[in-house]
Each structure stands twice: as C-alpha cells, then as structure tokens.
C-alpha cells in the first residue's frame, strides 16, 4: 500500500535551493532590521541644520578702532551662522539645543513691544521699531560662554543697553535692572511644560547694565535675529554666562532690590545672580576651567570674565567671587 503522506523524492525542495531561500530570507530580515534600527537612531538623534533667511539689517555700523580695543570686537574666528542658529539653549521652545530652531520656526514677532518701566522718570512702552531707532546697530563681535562649558564667537548687531536706560531717566533709587521674556505658551510651546518657572526673568546690577559692553541685540551676521536666537530683541552680556542673556524681551524694569532670576531660583547653589564667567569657580557638577569652542576640535582654557577682565574687572573689585558666583 502506498503511504499517502509519503512525499516523493522529486517533490522535496532540493537542499541547496532550500538553504538558499532561507539564507535569502534571513539576509532580508537582517538588512531590514538594520535599516529600521538606523531609522530609529536617526529619529532619536536629530542633528540640527537649516537655512536662516531673516532680513538683512540696514546701516550696520562698524565700531571704531578705539572701541574695538575696548572689547567691542574680539579677534578670534567667528562661529558659523549654521552653528549659532542650530545649537541654542532656549527652553521656551525646546530643551534640546538642536531642537530649538525647528520648534521656533515661524515664531511671530509682529507688533512686538518692550515696556521700560519702574524707577524711572519717563517710563515708556516702545514699539520694537522705535526701540531699534534709538541708536544705529553696531556690529559687536563677542565671545559667548555657556555655563555648560561650550563657547562661540558671535557677530551681534546691537547697541549698548545704557542708551535705552538713559532715555527713560533712571531715578537714583534704581539699583538693579530686571528683564522679562514673553510669556505666551501658544507661541512658545516649551512654556507648556513646567521645566522652568515661566516667564524667564533675568537681572543686572545698575552699573553692569550701564556698561558699554552690555547690549540689546537684534541681529547676528548682519541679519535680524532668527527666533531661536532670541528674536526680536535680546540681552547680551559677554562677560557673563550665556543664560544671563535673556531672549525675546518684553519688559525692562528698574528696581531697588536684587531681582529674582530664573536659573538662580531654580538651583541657587549652581547658578548665581552674577554668573560672571570664572574658570576658578566650578559649577558644582562640572569644571569651568576649560571650554569647548564650537567648531574647534580641542578645548580652550576659559578666561576670567570671558576675556573681558580689563573692561569689567573693576565692577567687582573687592568682591568675593566665590561667594558671589
């Protein structure tokens, strides 16, 4: 009797073909899985890049030789526009430095106003255009040292904050200047999370604010600030850690007492009110002695007051900078 289950010799797939098919299938699975892993990796590790097409700034003034010598223009290679605009700490949009630019794309600054108020004779709410007309934009090339131990060299467009402050005539009782970023979770999606206490606030002592190196910047590389860098107007204080340079400012308030500042309120033992760049005072969690200059390979030693000691050292004469970090 013939066994119905018996498979004839001819019906069996030849071993060579069988193993071939199996090998083929396996190679396919292997390749597909590697591609899937690669795609997942790419999704989880996006690298920022993109174009900047904000309008050019008209009438940019180059500082004089004397001003250049006073720290207005540092003679070091400038960080690329690409890096300056795609490596940002701006938690109002994203806590991922490479994710700020895409999250901030399309940020609408139409009708922007800045209120300058408090202990002044002539408080005023400036339309942005009027504020920018106070003084012609100057190209200031500053070092920028982030508290996270990386740094850049940035060609800003802006003018000294003192010019705005003088216009509103501070009272003698005004000892500090408090700054505030826009609070609008609709336009600034990062404000929907409570990672920081919103709105972002910063502050300077009056003499710091009046120092010519402290500027209100509205541009980089001769163009209007892109949103990720603090459009439409931000503070730049080159001898302090970057977080002092508050972005997208809506309020400047002259006050008598040291103002509340976001990062020092968040972690008072890690971020002080002064936040002067200081290679000798470490962040509790990392050394501040060296820095990674973006675009360079090795590390650079960090300079006292970020290299502006000659210009600003006198502001802190006699102060214990370990205590007042």
């Amino acid at each position: 009797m013939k066994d119905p289950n018996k498979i004839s010799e001819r019906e069996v797939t030849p071993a060579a073909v069988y193993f071939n098919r199996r090998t083929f299938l396996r190679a396919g699975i292997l390749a597909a899985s590697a591609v899937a892993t690669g795609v997942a990796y790419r999704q989880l590790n996006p690298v920022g890049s993109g174009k900047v097409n904000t309008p050019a700034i008209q009438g940019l003034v180059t500082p004089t030789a004397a001003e250049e010598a006073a720290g207005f223009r540092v003679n070091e290679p400038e960080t690329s526009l690409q890096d300056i605009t795609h490596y940002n700490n701006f938690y109002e949009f994203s806590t991922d430095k490479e994710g700020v630019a895409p999250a901030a794309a399309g940020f609408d600054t139409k009708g922007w106003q800045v209120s300058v108020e408090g202990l002044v004779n002539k408080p005023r709410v400036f339309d942005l255009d009027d504020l920018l007309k106070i003084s012609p934009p100057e190209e200031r090339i500053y070092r920028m040292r982030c508290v996270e131990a990386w740094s850049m060299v940035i060609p800003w467009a802006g003018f000294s904050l003192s010019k705005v402050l003088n216009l509103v005539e501070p009272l003698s009782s005004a000892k500090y200047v408090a700054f505030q970023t826009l609070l609008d979770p609709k336009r600034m999606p990062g404000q929907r999370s409570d990672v920081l206490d919103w709105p972002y606030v910063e502050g300077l002592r009056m003499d710091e604010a009046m120092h010519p190196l402290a500027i209100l910047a509205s541009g980089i590389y001769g163009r209007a600030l892109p949103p990720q860098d603090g459009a439409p107007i931000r503070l730049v204080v080159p001898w302090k850690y970057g977080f002092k340079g508050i972005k997208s400012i809506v309020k400047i308030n002259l006050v008598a007492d040291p103002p509340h500042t976001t990062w020092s309120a968040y972690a008072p033992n890690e971020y002080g009110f002064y936040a002067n760049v200081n290679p000798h005072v470490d962040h509790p969690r990392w050394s501040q002695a060296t820095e990674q200059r973006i675009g360079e390979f090795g590390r650079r030693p960090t300079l006292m007051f970020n290299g502006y000691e000659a210009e600003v050292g006198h502001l802190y004469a006699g102060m214990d900078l370990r205590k007042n970090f």
Partner: protein
Amino acid sequence: MKENDIRFIKLLILVNGAVPLALLVWDQSHNKLGANPQNFLILTTGMMTLIFLTLTMAVTPMRKITGLNWLIQFRRMLGLYAFFYGCLHFLCFFSLDRAFSVASTLTEMLKRKYLILGSTALIAMIPLAVTSTNGMIKRLGGKRWRALHRLAYVAAIAGVIHFYMQVKADVRLPLVFAAVLAILLGYRLVNYWRQRKPVPAAALKPKSEA
C-alpha cells in the same frame, strides 16, 4: 528554538547593536554630528550604554513572563554591548572632554558625584564582561556566577542616576529610564519575595516546557 535560529537571532543583535556605532562613525567622518560633535559623541554612547543595560535587565523578566526560555541566550551579547558602549563613552570623555589628561580625568572623576556614579557603573561591568564566557561560568559555578552578576543591578542603578544628575533641568528622559529600570527591578523584588513565602505543594509541580 533551533540552534540555527538562535544563531541567526544572535547575528541580528550583533548587527543591530553595531548600527548606532556605524552611524556615529559615518556622521563623524562626514561632519554631521551637529554643532558640538564632542558632546554628541559622549551623550550618544552613554545613552546606548543605558539602552543596552536596560535591554539586558529586561531579558529575565521577559523570559519568565512569556515562558520563552531561549531568550536567555541573548543576554550575554546585550550585556557585552552595554559594556562596549560604556567603554566608548568613557574613552570619549577621556579624549574629548579631558583632552587625554589622565590627571584631570581622575580629579574630575573623584570630584563630581555624577562621575563617581558613572565610574561605579562602568567598573561594576568589568567583572561581568570578564566572566561572561562559558568557561568562566563553569569555573565559578552557577550560584557564584549569578551572585557576581547581580552587579548588573549596581551598574544599571548607578548609570541611570549618573544620567539624571548631569541633566540641567529637563529630567524627563532620565526619569523614563528610571521608571523602566524600577519596573524591571521591582519585578525581581516581587519574585524574590514570593519565592521566600512557603509555596503550596500544587504550585511546585514542574511546568511543562514551552
């Protein structure tokens, strides 16, 4: 599971585990690691270490829950990948952050709590990697080997805290790792506690092999 299939899955893990490294090397050589490639390399290798540590820790619970005992065969490779990326992570820190300075690497590692924890995690993985061979398992004996390999818990816990501590403010991602790790460790704890209680005789009946 056939031996042949096991070997194939091992190959799958081997290849896929190397994909992130391959992409890192590729991106580095094409200048595509972003504005701060040094930081990107340190961060990504650290993240890979934690991912592989978590996967390694997930094997035993997965095996027990699903009854798929052959899963255990992939644990060694996952663990070795965790160690491999951990070593790369350290080398990146040593070369890129500390500029090959042994002195500054050592002082930093002893000075910063998060680096002490990171070093603890990496050092805890060394004996695990060394004793990962079949020969070493035999030589140590299963019981002692298993006891030694509980160091993996130390590595995982220290690693996740190390990650949590170096984040500036946004701790969401470290907390995700911590939550997953808590589940994996919690599972073991519950299991351990259950096994210590007297077990009714009926439950002692051997389960049929899956």
